[in-house]
């Protein structure tokens, strides 16, 4: 549904997107993950026809974003990370206005506004002026606005930013509901657990390049390929732990061993057979009380893939 190939975008001397490639299959929730400034917002703005790429191509539902922006706008609903609302318009009028922008006939506009307000649970606030709504309600209203022309694809840039936990859960449920309605959804975020729970596909972007992409299960499997083991020894003192660490460290395939909270944690490569390491420790006389592979998570993968030292100036930046 979304196909991005070799996308490049430069702002002055800064290369924001560097040969970006990824695809989003139809009907999936694609989590676009990356640290602040990685290029998420630039990518989404290009897909939404708000920015022009310097090179490469991007297609949504077969329509090239730089060749036919109006064609893209017909199939895309866009929700920016920061947005405002008009004052002195109520929620129904707000949606009807955008319906008119998308050339919906007046009777259909009213019906669509009513249905969308119901979908985002704002029917009770239909007559309230939009600038009096809470942040969470405005987010939901903005999502309803993005749906006013019934697009196939939704581009949501940090849809849950600034929301309280309850509003986040409501937003998450809403996005799931939209997937059930057949929408293809691309969500950008730098909040990993949020995406891990919600998405079916994951793309990790760092410094303008996609460093990992695929179905969530595959990405997580790859994340655990080089796993960590937690090894607890019964009644072991510091000397005993140090001896065990030294023995574990002699194994080929063990990348690193450290003592964490009175236990050993070993990073092992994919070629190491963990059961042989366990047998060796037992045969060496260590009383192994726990030998547990630590579950790989998207957070681990994210930290590993985007963990290169950053220039100091990036530390306090917002946006992505």
């Amino acid at each position, binding site marked *: 549904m979304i196909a991005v190939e070799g996308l490049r975008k430069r*702002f*002055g*001397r*800064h290369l*924001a997107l560097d040969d970006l490639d990824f695809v989003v299959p139809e009907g999936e929730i694609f989590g676009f993950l990356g640290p*602040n*400034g*990685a*290029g998420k*917002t*630039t990518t989404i*703005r290009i897909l*939404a*026809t*708000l*920015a*022009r790429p310097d090179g490469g191509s991007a297609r949504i539902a077969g329509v090239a*974003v*730089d060749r036919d*922006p*109006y064609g893209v*706008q*017909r199939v*895309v609903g*866009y929700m*920016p990370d*920061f*947005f*405002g*609302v*008009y*004052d*002195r*318009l109520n929620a129904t*009028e707000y949606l009807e*206005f*955008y319906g*008119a*922008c*998308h*050339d919906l006939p007046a009777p259909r506009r009213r019906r669509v506004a009513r249905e969308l307000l119901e979908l985002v649970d704002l029917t009770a606030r239909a007559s309230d002026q939009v600038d009096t709504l809470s942040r969470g309600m405005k987010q939901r209203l*903005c999502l309803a*606005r993005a749906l006013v*022309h019934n697009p196939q694809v939704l581009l949501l840039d940090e849809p849950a930013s600034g929301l309280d936990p309850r509003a986040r859960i409501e937003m998450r449920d809403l996005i799931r509901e939209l997937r059930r309605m057949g929408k293809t959804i691309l969500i950008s975020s730098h909040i990993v657990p949020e995406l891990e729970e919600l998405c079916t596909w994951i793309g990790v972007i760092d*410094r303008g390049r996609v460093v990992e992409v695929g179905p969530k299960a595959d990405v997580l499997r790859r994340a655990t390929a080089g796993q960590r083991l937690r090894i607890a020894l019964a009644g072991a003192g510091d000397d005993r732990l140090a001896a065990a660490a030294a023995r574990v460290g002699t194994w080929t395939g063990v990348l690193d061993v450290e003592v964490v909270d009175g236990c050993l944690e070993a990073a092992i490569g994919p070629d190491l057979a963990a059961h042989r390491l366990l047998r060796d420790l037992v045969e060496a006389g260590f009383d192994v009380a726990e030998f547990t592979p630590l579950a790989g998570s998207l957070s681990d993968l994210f930290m590993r893939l985007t963990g290169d030292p*950053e*220039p100091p*100036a*990036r530390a306090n*930046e917002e*946006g*992505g």
Partner: protein
Amino acid sequence: MDWRRSLRRVFLNPLVTKDGLSRMRSWRAPGAIALYLGLLGGFGVLVLRVALGAGGQSGGYTQSGGYAQIGSAVFTAMAMLQLALVCLFSPAVAAGAVSAERERQTLDVLLVSGVSPLSLVWGKLVASVAFILLLVVAAQPLFATIFLFGGIDFQQFAIAQLLTATTALAAAAVSLLFSVLFRRTLLSTVAAYAATFAGTVGTWVLGVILTIGAASQRTGFPELNPLMLFNPIQAMLMILQVPVIGVTVPAARRSTTLYTGLAGLVVAPPVEPWMVTVAAESVLVILCAAAAVLLLRGQRPMPWSLEPRVEPVHPGVEPQDQPVR
């Protein structure tokens, strides 16, 4: 975007409805109408009292044609004030049309909602001018009462209103261009007022100085400087036959004056100066609207554009880019 949709957007632009609804729900709209009518009516009454007082002292207003002179004087004063007021109101209404959308972060959403830059500029221009025209229309009963005195024919009245309307449109178009050019409404408003002042009072004063300078070097009927022929103040004064620089330009001389001043021709078709002004203002509207559309499209980087080409201060910061159209 097909032509039928474009045509529909000309007459049924959702922005006009939305902006109109928003504007009329604010206390500012009735406040502006009340202020406008109050100033115009108050000024008219003041001029009327002065004229009646002057006429009473000389016994002039009781003579034949005295009321007509009073009517003409009051109408002229009110028409000039109306021109000044629309020049004051137009930038206030139009200078924030696009920059305010940017400031409240609604422009991006608008541009991905099937609204083309042309449709956006057209909608904003119509919405702004519609309010100014509402003020002009609301003032018509005030002007109508002046007809009771006589001294003004319908043609003068109609042309004065047309000139006021086109001047309002031109001021709104210039203000709208600044609204696209500048990110901040405050800045665009200041620039719009400066441009409107320069284009009306500035060119008129300059034209008067140049005309006086030229008249001192020649004898006979003073030629108006061509600059003044594009000036709405001068056009209004000539419609109302107000003497400028000590002379009233007779109707028979106007067209000749125009063409002599412009191209040195002696024989010319009968073109009235107000026609030149209206035509010039219409061209200005088209140019400003076209420039605004091109700026919004972001396809014509203009060297004089005051929108900086945003570059990140640090690697990783992603500036807001111009939209693709």
